């Protein structure tokens, strides 16, 4: 089990009702961490439409969640 902090932005933040939460996860990769968050909050986004970041850098869905890390799920962006 690893303790990680999840960050939520935009519609994911609204749906989760928080902008971050610390959770314990047994997931083997970041994909699994998203699946757990999706089940918990009822996110409608399929994982393929999101990107993932760990500790402020883009990461891969098959990366292993590091204990104490900050993990962010990035829905499609709309700046500019």
């Amino acid at each position, binding site marked *: 089990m690893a303790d990680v902090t999840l*960050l939520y*932005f*935009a*519609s994911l*933040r*609204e749906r989760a009702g928080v902008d971050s939460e610390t959770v314990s996860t047994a997931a083997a990769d970041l994909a699994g961490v998203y699946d757990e968050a999706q089940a918990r909050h009822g996110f409608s986004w399929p994982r393929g*439409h999101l990107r993932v*970041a760990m500790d*402020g*850098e*883009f990461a891969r869905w098959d990366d292993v969640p590091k204990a104490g890390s900050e993990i*962010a799920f*990035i*829905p*499609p*962006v*709309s*700046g*500019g």
Partner: protein
Amino acid sequence: MAGFLLSDLPLDIASLRAQVLDRRAGGYASFEGWVRDHHAGRAVDGLDYEAYATLAEREGERVIAEAKARFDVIEACCAHRVGTLAIGDLAVWVGVSAAHRGAAFDACRYIIDETKRRVPIWKREHYREGDADWLHPMAEEA
């Protein structure tokens, strides 16, 4: 000078522009994105921008570095607002100086295109009818 900035406060074009001025520069191209009063057929009253600031600044700096590597430019900068904006407010500013105009235009366009495509900033539109929505365009419709 930072190449990519997020700002809670209104952008000051004159001071941003002054950052890219250079005696060797013959051409300067800039882009400004303003809050429009309509989008996708709906009347818009204003909007909020939210950013994942740590990653937005890093990714934005990468965009600027790529533009400097790809095009023969002297200086390049992008600034993006976060927070609540009204119609007509400046949301994003890009400025590029170069010896020649072609490189200035190409780099300026690259920076705004890549910023919109990759930098983790999100827009929430407030519609005149009272509702509001986060915009999450799929890549193919962005």
